[in-house]
């Protein structure tokens, strides 16, 4: 298991977990969101392959559309 922080909360997850699996497992919709790891956006096209690493700080950023 590895430890990550997601939206400010601590989680223990299996090593080798992808971003897509993490979000799916937590029932977080991937529609209209971007995901950042350690202050860097993880492109959506890589969510299926990019692996979480121990100590990652992850934030889910919601699209804002108002002006």
């Amino acid at each position, binding site marked *: 298991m590895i430890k990550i922080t997601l939206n400010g909360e601590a989680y223990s997850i299996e090593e080798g977990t992808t971003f897509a699996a993490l979000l799916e497992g937590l029932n977080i919709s991937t529609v209209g969101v971007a995901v950042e790891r350690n202050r860097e956006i993880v*492109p959506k096209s890589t969510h299926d392959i990019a692996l979480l690493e121990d100590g990652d700080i992850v934030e889910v950023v*919601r699209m804002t559309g108002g002006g």
Partner: protein
Amino acid sequence: MDFTEEQIERYSRHIILPEVGGKGQEKLLNAKVFVLGAGGLGSPALMYLAAAGIGTLGIADGDHVDLSNLQRQIIHNNERIGMHKALSAKKTINELNPDVNVITYEERLTADNIREVLRDYDIILDGSDNFPTRFLMNDACFFEGKPLVSGSMFRFEGQVAVFDPTNGEPCYRCLYPEPPPKGLVPSCQEAGVLGALAGVIGVLQAVEAIKIVLGKGKPLTGSLLIFDALDMSFRKVKVGKDPVCALCSDTATIKELITYEAEVCEI
């Protein structure tokens, strides 16, 4: 360019800055900036761009001033209710700074006319109120090779970024590949927005546009700035180019403008 006595006085606090000076002020007076939406974000952005002496300001908005706008759209006022927003904005700007040439577009921009409009400007500000327009603007700026200063907000949160894919930087689609399906994101009219938040985000857009004109500092290219008004915190996040971005990568599939189903979200 020879400044008039009045201009030397008006812009004295700019001219005295080593980063601006007479040359920088001349750049501002020669700059052409386009602002989509004379709403929550467009209002403060336009007023500071006008005060800074941006020589040409284009304003597009298809709406009319409504009483419910005045909680945040400070370029308008009570007497302008019912007036075209673009014309109301022009009136305020003319009263603020006669140096500014204001060009108004009193209709919604579409895939048919947007590229032609943007072509005349150096820098584009997005203060639109819905996702289909945001993607249309992003794609049109990419095809026309214009830097896009994007601002958006929802409730107590705002986001600012500069997209400049023509210069090797990411575009809006590198961050958000597609608009959310209609109905999935809560209606902004129901959700509400803190009025003063519009000032924070719109003014940040104006600052970025002015920096780009001057060629000074480091604009938010390749970065997303997220502001949380409740927590009073800013977070700056790196945005890289998506290697398979449908618009701006080598494997791009979008070759022309797309019209997404409009869902007006009147913030």
